[in-house]
């Protein structure tokens, strides 16, 4: 039993709230990312980490000091960091002669490493180098993946899932249409992945939907895939499993037809149709003479004196 597994009894309300935020929930919090520098990180890699931190604020932590670890050999220190800071995504930057400008992007499940992919940065243009106006911090970006290799190749598919997870941001129920300013575009061509960020300008077009013009902004990276450490299929399936309570409840007895009309089905008890309340039509009302003729056979009621 290592010290982090001990049952911690909270002594204050604040500590209790802190622990409740970290425990597993039905609807999870937005994933936090930790950006770590390796023992031999150089300027390029540090600049990349700083830029990605700027994009992912406030759901990211940038560690200032260098940490001498090798994620592909030993994952315990990464898991320790993840437990301490409650982050399930990480980006580790290092540099050596064999693998220059190395970035290891990965995610955790239950504080254990799920997937890790090593990418090499071939070209990097930082936020500072592009002299255009930037969009506000914390904007939810639009993500676009171009290239059929993102569906064909298993590693690229995991990379796509990892990148979506990384850059997604919080899940929101509605979005301000004029505020769709930031778009991240990933193109996979010829063994390389080009990541570009653009600022979206909405121009007037004749109709309701505006015409889009893009302006280069923000970090742009040319990446090449190196080593990977992907989770086994059953562990991945386990991590994808959603609890049953989250499934939307199916509304019974409601159906839609082709034209968009909604039909509902109501189940009624057996009704006595002779006692049904219908509209009164004075002309069809039984006249007293007719009524008497009907009741003649039955027991005579008290008759009103005319």
């Amino acid at each position: 039993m290592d010290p982090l597994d001990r049952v911690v009894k909270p002594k204050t309300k604040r500590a209790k709230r802190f622990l409740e935020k970290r425990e597993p929930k039905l609807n999870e919090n937005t994933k936090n990312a930790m950006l770590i520098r390796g023992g031999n990180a150089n300027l390029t890699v540090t600049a990349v980490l700083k830029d990605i931190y700027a994009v992912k604020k406030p759901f990211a932590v940038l560690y200032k000091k260098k940490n001498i670890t090798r994620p592909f050999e030993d994952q315990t220190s990464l898991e320790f960091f993840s437990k301490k800071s409650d982050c399930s995504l990480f980006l580790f930057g290092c540099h050596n002669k064999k693998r220059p400008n190395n970035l290891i992007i990965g995610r955790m499940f239950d504080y254990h490493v799920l997937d890790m992919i090593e990418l090499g940065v071939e070209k990097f243009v930082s936020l500072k180098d592009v002299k255009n106006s930037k969009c506000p911090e914390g904007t939810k970006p639009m993500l676009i993946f171009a290239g059929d290799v993102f569906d064909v190749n298993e590693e690229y598919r995991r990379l796509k899932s990892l990148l979506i997870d990384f850059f997604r941001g919080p899940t929101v129920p509605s979005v301000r249409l004029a505020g769709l300013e930031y778009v991240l575009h990933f193109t996979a061509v010829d063994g390389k992945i080009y990541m570009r960020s653009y600022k979206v300008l909405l121009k007037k077009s004749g109709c309701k939907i505006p015409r889009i013009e893009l302006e280069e902004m923000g970090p742009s990276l040319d990446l090449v895939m190196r080593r990977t450490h992907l989770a086994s299929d059953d562990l991945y399936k386990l991590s994808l499993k959603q609890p049953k309570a989250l499934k939307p409840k199916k509304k019974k007895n409601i159906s839609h037809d082709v034209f968009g009309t909604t039909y509902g089905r109501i189940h009624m008890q057996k009704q006595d149709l002779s006692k049904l309340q219908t509209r009164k039509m004075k002309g069809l009302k039984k006249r007293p003479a007719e009524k008497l003729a009907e009741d003649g056979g039955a027991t005579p009621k008290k008759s009103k004196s005319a």
Partner: protein
Amino acid sequence: MAAVRVEAVLAAAEEQEAEKRRSITVEKELELEFDLGNLLALDRNPPPAAAALRGAGPRREALLRALARDNTQLLVSRLWELPTERAGGAGGPLVARLPEPTFRLPREKPPPRPRPPTRWEQFARLKGIRRRKKTSLVWDEQAKEWRRRWGYRRAGGDPARAWLAEVPAGADPEEDQFARLRREKRERVARNELNRLRNLARAHRAGSAVPAAPLHPTGHQDREELRRVARVARVSTASLGRFQPRLPKEPAEPPSRSGGRKRRFEPLLGNLAAERSRQLELLRDMGSKKPVLDITRAVNKQMRQEEAEAAAAHKGKKQSQRGKRGRRQQRPGRSGKKSGARRQQQKPAGGGSGGGRRKKA
């Protein structure tokens, strides 16, 4: 003349419409896949010729930018088609309602497990004891007003200011009663805290699901863990624990000669004497008038099951509590046969079990 002019006007209008639409339409071979909940678009078209992209510099950037512009146009058109509303009243910004995200992403942590019931909860479920809602204020006769049940200015008066402590009937007259009350309160609090921590540890252990964890090195083991580990240690010898001497007070475990198999059948031509005695016993049981079924045990089991079911059903419906009297009155209403058997057996069974219970408390 007029007809031609009308046609010309209509054609011109259509031309204009098409012109406007041209600025926002994008031609693609394959349709993109959209996940509007995540603001995501996936383009499966093969990217523009690799040769064009290999040439580094502005040409490549321009190509990438054009591709990005097309894809973004398609995504934004889709987003603009979503149902919109004005957030925050009439003057607020225009927001679109996003659907649920469809792209499956792995969770951060496994889904939460329901915590195991505490010892009291298990007992209550077994006995059919339900929660009663208590009023928050109690009438205090002495102060002639409504006081709270516990806490500051409680109904029974401040216990720290109690100036009288009676010596109970069988107690030592020299004993300090105030000290005894204080000691007993401290013991109660300590026991409560211990039980709470035990429940918490049980829940935590169940949550992390570590059945085969090694023994904790410094004395925090509990009985079951020790027993389990001792059993495993005994069996992990070359002869699977058959010749392992037992400790002085360790109970002798019946040897499972089958080595863990569930069913074992006797050999066909084995012990003739045993077979004969078994058959005679069977005949004897069949011929005897005494019922093989133990009515008392069966009836008690049935009663307990019914109580548990009733408690569960009441918890689900959230009915108001009827209290003990109501529950007792319910009993005779049940099926006659069972209640008859119960009434017959209740005296000896109730007396026996009631006496037993009293002794324990």
